[in-house]
């Protein structure tokens, strides 16, 4: 009988705990708002994972892990017509491109990464079907779930804290007038970089998360760290009721009214002249 529910009511940590303790074999499918994830377990261990339509082929995973250059990736892709991952893996090992361990490590890192990304989902309909195995041609791994469950628990605690600090994603943010004194040593992550161009009081955090492809958890993490760094501050939404306006990039000119654009440019020119 399938285990069904929503991550909102039964968290991924709880699910993994169940799978681990009951040594279950089967497939967990989670349907999120933008994507879906399939995770295969074998006797309570992580065996295989796939997110959405991402390239999950062995050659794609090795390329993502920077073990293959883009040219090598394209070359292999073009020459492995119909070859399964298992066959390709053997070929790469026999040709001394990689050791068996290197291939398994890369797959393990990739599958764990998929599961970690799933931890950031707070909503999503899930279904666990027993005795469904990964596709025959795929190489599987065996990863103990204990550490992942611990990490998930820590993340759940962090989320709880973040939700206290940033209760709603319907708020906006703006750059502070006077950044904190500690900004000289500030270090931004790639996600923080992604968010910076969208910092505008008119853009809600939900909109920024959508456009930057960050989960609710990730956007809270990013905003919290930027708040802590003293770069931004929270502001009330510009339109408290109804649908927010479309997300605004810091460029009202290119897609806007030409006359208005010219007027804006003239104002900027006047201001720069007076600097």
């Amino acid at each position, binding site marked *: 009988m399938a285990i069904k529910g929503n991550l909102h009511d039964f968290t991924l940590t709880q699910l993994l705990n169940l799978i681990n303790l009951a040594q279950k074999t089967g497939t967990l499918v989670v349907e999120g708002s933008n994507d879906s994830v399939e995770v295969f377990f074998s006797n309570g261990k992580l065996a295989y994972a796939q997110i959405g339509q991402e390239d999950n082929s062995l050659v794609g995973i090795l390329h993502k892990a920077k073990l293959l250059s883009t040219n090598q990736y394209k070359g292999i892709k073009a020459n492995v017509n119909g070859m399964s991952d298992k066959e390709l893996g053997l070929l790469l090992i026999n040709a001394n491109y990689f050791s068996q361990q290197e291939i398994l490590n890369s797959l393990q890192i990739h599958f764990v990464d998929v599961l970690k990304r799933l931890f950031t989902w707070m909503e999503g309909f899930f279904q666990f079907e027993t005795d469904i195995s990964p596709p025959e041609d795929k190489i599987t791994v065996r990863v103990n779930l204990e550490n992942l469950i611990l990490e998930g628990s820590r993340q759940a605690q962090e989320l709880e804290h973040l939700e206290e600090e940033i209760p709603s994603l319907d708020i906006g943010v703006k750059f502070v007038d006077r950044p904190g004194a500690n900004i000289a040593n500030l*270090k931004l992550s*790639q996600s923080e970089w992604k968010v*910076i*161009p969208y910092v505008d009081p008119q853009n809600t955090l939900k909109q920024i998360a959508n456009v930057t492809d960050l989960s609710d958890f990730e956007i809270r993490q990013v905003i919290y760290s930027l708040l802590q760094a003293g770069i931004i501050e929270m502001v009330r939404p510009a339109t408290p009721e109804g649908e927010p306006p479309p997300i605004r990039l810091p460029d009202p*000119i290119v897609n806007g009214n030409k006359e208005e*654009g010219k007027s804006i*440019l003239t104002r*900027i*020119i006047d201001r720069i002249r007076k*600097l």
Partner: protein
Amino acid sequence: MQTLKMVVTGPFNAGKTEFIQSVSEIDVVSTERKISSEIERIKETTTVAMDFGRITIDNEMALYLFGTPGQKRFDFMWEILSEGMLGFVVIIDSTRPETFREARKILETFRAYAPTPYVVAANKQDCEDAWEVDDMRIALRLNSDIKLLECVATKKNSVKDVLLELLYSILAEFEAVDLTLAN
């Protein structure tokens, strides 16, 4: 408040931070580079160098200047930064011809991301060993219609001139679009 964005790019140590610092009304937010290997680049926790400064235009509008990380290994951030920019400035160290080729590549990359107006600023023109802009134009293979401007990034007036030239180019492009439409 409406926000607008310009990007200041160029090779490592070309003078981007000084350029922004000279006109920004807030302390330039400048981060350190902490990436030690190519593999770290793909990690979400990777630290990326950046600068940004701000000029308040009036009560309703602010202009942000974003300085891009100079090294090639940070180029994955360039596309993110180029989104929605009004235009960009390519800063080149006039005393370091060994960086000219890289500057050219950066310029081409940004042009591919967003075909917005741009100007090239030949920085450190106050240095004795600075190349003449005419020689730099040849070395950089810049057409005569591309603005290559003398610049000293530590001097506010020099930076203002570069920004103004970029704004004039943006304005001219707007007017050209209008003329095209009218014809």
